[in-house]
């Protein structure tokens, strides 16, 4: 049978063999943890502890500001030594709480086990919010917001994203293999919240072990394990929904417009911790990999550990890295240094050597149409980019720049090495600016 997928897409070398067979290792605590106050999409949290104060593991140290926001918690017990601007994965220094671990690593006494059967779905969502659970695929959108769709948009299909289509990354893969119970528990909890009729876990066919394991464990439950064709960006929300349900999320719309909600499998595990144990999201699995790393590993890391600590745990560097990327090579963000901390959305740390960097000079577009055929959103990247470069805002919008999901497929295939994604982002910013001005 032909596996389900979407139209377009690319097949980059996945390079997962470096870590896909390696069990998750606990990362030892460093001397200092820098927990940034903005780790999610939405308003940053506000510090609610003082310098010199002792905090317990899991204690709230930054409180949420507004609905689309979540609290931030101490990743270990220790003393708050500073609250100041520190280097941040977003590029510029941002407020962070600096904790000096006391070595006890003792949980806050407020956290307790709850029987989920005794909770209403609203109480359950509140627990998820308090635990600071965000989407762990990379975008870090607060999970409780997603879990509260308006009543006129009922969710009939709940979709779990175990695709992990980004090359190099294996953290979700290992989660599904080693912590399948936590994941499935979260799946059940989320199904309870949404009241969805159909529950699907989508997994790319290059993880047969995870597919087999989950199939076995879900044999009696009404959870469907859906193997998907190996193709990037199979894990992009809209493409995953199309593959699983055959529905297209309307342009400018959200998954709930077609009655679907999508969560990452790691998010499901975090929901389990939050609801059953009352434990906030203070750790995650992160794949530390790349040609510049001596011993690539899947690490269970605490939020706030510095990249240099992760590198050290993985045996150090082979040579000076040319590029430091948080996330995968297709959509991850380059970092200005190794003093940056990991945050809730950091699914991987990829270090490339200078020779691995794609750095051929930009040439003129030869209209080869590879980008058009690779685009999973069916756009004409080269045309949008040409308009965006000339700041022709109306034409940029007319060619549907705003529908671009910035997956990078077009830039990947472009033989002229045109920074298509960057140009389209540039164009999108111009379109948004124009819309803002029109409102004024």
């Amino acid at each position: 049978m032909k596996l389900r997928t979407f139209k377009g897409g690319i097949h980059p070398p996945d390079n997962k063999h470096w870590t896909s067979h390696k069990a998750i290792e606990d990362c030892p605590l460093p001397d200092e943890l820098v927990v940034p106050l903005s780790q999610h999409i939405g308003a940053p949290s506000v510090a609610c502890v003082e310098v010199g104060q002792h905090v317990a593991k899991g204690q709230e140290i930054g409180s949420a500001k507004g609905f689309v926001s979540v609290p931030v918690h101490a990743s270990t017990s220790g003393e708050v030594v500073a609250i100041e601007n520190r280097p941040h994965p977003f590029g510029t220094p941002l407020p962070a709480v600096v904790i000096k671990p006391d070595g006890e690593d003792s949980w806050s006494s407020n956290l307790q086990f709850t029987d989920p059967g005794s909770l209403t779905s609203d109480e359950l969502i509140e627990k998820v919010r308090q635990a600071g659970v965000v989407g762990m695929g990379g975008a870090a959108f607060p999970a409780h917001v997603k879990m509260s769709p308006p009543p006129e948009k009922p969710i009939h299909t709940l979709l779990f994203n175990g695709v992990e289509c980004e090359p190099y990354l294996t953290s979700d893969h290992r989660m599904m293999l080693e912590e399948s119970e936590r994941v499935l528990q979260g799946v059940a909890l989320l199904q309870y919240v949404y009241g969805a009729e159909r529950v699907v876990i989508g997994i790319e066919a290059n993880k047969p072990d995870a597919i087999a394991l989950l199939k076995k464990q879900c044999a009696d439950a009404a959870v469907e394990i859906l193997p998907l064709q190996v193709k990037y960006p199979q894990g992009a929300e809209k493409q995953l929904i199309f593959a699983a349900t055959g529905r297209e999320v309307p342009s400018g719309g959200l998954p709930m417009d077609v009655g679907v909600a999508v969560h990452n499998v790691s998010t499901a595990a975090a929901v389990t911790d939050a609801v059953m144990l009352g434990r906030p999201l203070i750790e995650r699995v992160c794949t530390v990999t790349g040609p510049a790393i001596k011993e690539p590993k899947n690490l269970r890391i605490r939020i706030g550990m510095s990249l240099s600590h992760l590198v050290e745990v993985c045996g150090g560097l082979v040579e000076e890295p040319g590029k430091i990327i948080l996330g995968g090579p297709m959509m991850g963000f380059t970092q200005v240094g190794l003093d940056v901390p990991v945050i809730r959305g950091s699914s991987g740390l990829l270090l490339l050597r200078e020779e691995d960097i794609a750095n051929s000079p930009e040439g003129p577009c030869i209209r080869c149409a590879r980008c058009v055929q690779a685009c999973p959103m069916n756009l004409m990247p080269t045309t949008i980019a040409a308009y965006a470069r000339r700041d022709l805002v109306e034409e940029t919008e007319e060619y549907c720049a705003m529908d671009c999901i910035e997956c990078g497929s077009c830039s990947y295939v472009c033989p002229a090495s045109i920074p298509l994604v960057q140009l389209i982002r540039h164009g999108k910013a111009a379109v948004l600016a124009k819309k803002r001005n029109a409102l004024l």
Partner: protein
Amino acid sequence: MADLLVILVSAIFVNNFVLARFLGICPFLGVSKKVETALGMGMAVTFVMTVATVATWFVQYFILIPFGIEYLQTIAFILIIASLVQLVEMVIQKVSPVLYQSLGIFLPLITTNCAVLGLAVLNIQKDYTFLEGIVFAIGAALGFTLALVLFAGLRERLELCAVPQSFRGTAIALVTAGLLSLAFMGFAGLVKG
């Protein structure tokens, strides 16, 4: 019927007014920066050409020939065409200000447009009947529109190209027009027009 088809095809492709007869170059270069305006201009020319053919045909056969003053053909035709274009201009200005703005100063250009005058004169020279004349006019106008729209498409694309500074604008437009005309020579001999 077959004759009419031959006249039509010949006027559109084989003896395209712009690309084979080289008539009406001024609006061809002037109003071909955008496909929309090119289409508008094509419509305007189609309308003017058809009406002008009707008017000049009547003037030729009911005034100039009966009175034996065929030598006044050119001046009479110009007079009629000029008034007609003025009329069209006024109507467009009132009915569609947007079209008027985009056609801008080029509408008056049809006034002294050699394509319209050339059509009227050719029509008489070829001894076309009234019906043939109208078909010829429509064919010529469609050919003009086709050339104009194709050319506008090319020029829109050139806007996004790295044309060297010294060739930008009219220079590259003329080179392109030449190449387009070369391509149209492939139609030569397709029908005896």
